[in-house]
């Protein structure tokens, strides 16, 4: 079973994402900001991270930069999942190493196809 770490400061978004991911047979853990996510990744590397942009303590971009600096056995796939829908944000995220990008709002089909694209399912 694959693992997904859902990183979002919104409890509602985490719940929606969890619901969809579990229906795709993916095990879900949650983090409420980038720092929390980084700590969790250091303890156990998930297969994929679903990452919000704006969060208190540490943003999605900061998380991504920290992640690429951190030494790890394996690297999780990172799917940005954010209301920042402008092409500038998308380009910046891809340049920073994001594997995929989902614009909110999203649905099951979208998430499923993005997980297929990054090879998690």
């Amino acid at each position, binding site marked *: 079973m694959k693992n997904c770490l859902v990183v979002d400061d919104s409890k509602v978004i985490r719940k929606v994402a969890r619901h969809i991911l579990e229906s795709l047979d993916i095990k879900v853990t949650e983090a409420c900001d980038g720092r929390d996510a980084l700590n969790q990744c250091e303890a156990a590397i998930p297969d994929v991270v679903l990452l919000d942009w704006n969060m208190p303590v540490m943003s999605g971009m900061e998380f991504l930069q920290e992640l690429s600096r951190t030494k790890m056995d394996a690297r999780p796939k990172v799917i940005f999942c954010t209301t920042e829908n402008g*092409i500038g944000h998308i380009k910046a995220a891809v340049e920073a190493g994001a594997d995929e990008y989902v614009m909110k709002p999203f649905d099951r089909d979208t998430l499923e196809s993005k997980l297929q694209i990054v090879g998690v399912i």
Partner: protein
Amino acid sequence: MSAPGATPGNSAAFTGAMRILAGLLEARTGQILSESRIWRIETALKPVLRMNGMANLEELVSQLLASTESNLTDDVINALLNNETSFFRDLQTFDMLYRDLLPQLSSSKQDKVLRIWCAGCSTGQEAYSLAMQLRKDAGRWQGWRIQILATDISTAAISRAQSGLFSQIDVQRGLAINDLLRWFEPVGDDWKVSDELRRMIEFRVDNLLEPKASSGDYDLILCRNVMLYFSLERRQKVFSRLAEHSRQGSYLILGAGETVIGQTDAFAASRSFRGSYERSAKTEKINQPVRKTA
């Protein structure tokens, strides 16, 4: 592949107008509506009713019967067709095309002409996905003449396909972010496909039951998720048409849940490429009805 709706159950409760509209759709397109979709005819046609200031389906039907105005008929047909599609639908199929089947065509065709037909292309995602797969391998196709014909019976679907404009929801389904960045630009809330891709494809309104837009032989035909709700006879007829527009060794790709088995002898499962069918040599059998198996 049975045709839902072909054997009505509690269809006695359908109104006359519902039956006439379902009948019109089948006569024009071959599509047989399932019972649950017949129940939703009114919902599907709400926008058409509103646009024409009509109160109900009965009024619409009498207008349809009285007038020769084909715009109204087109609007009704467009609204009743299922245009469900997405970029890179069934990703494995597009991977297989990119990795195996297209390279095989490029090494086997001396004339350096590649002809592809997307039959039932809906709003264009399938044809654009193909074009992207070809452009990804641009070196291989250097000096080739590549023709992609994409046809659909829905005038609305074809004009959307031609516009190259897709909503945020459309571009998120199946399209990798790098392909979005490479091939699209934002226009308001939508995304517009690049002219470079658009120039590769000719979109035409055409009915598979009596195709006019297609001519000659295609090396590859995609006819995916179009014939699911056709009667067996119609499906056999369409397979013959597809066979007439291909040569021995051409490939046919159907939707993930579709098969040629029991429908035609003109195509057989390809041994080399999973999920694709190869045009057989025995052309003399093409127009003979095939016995129903299941």
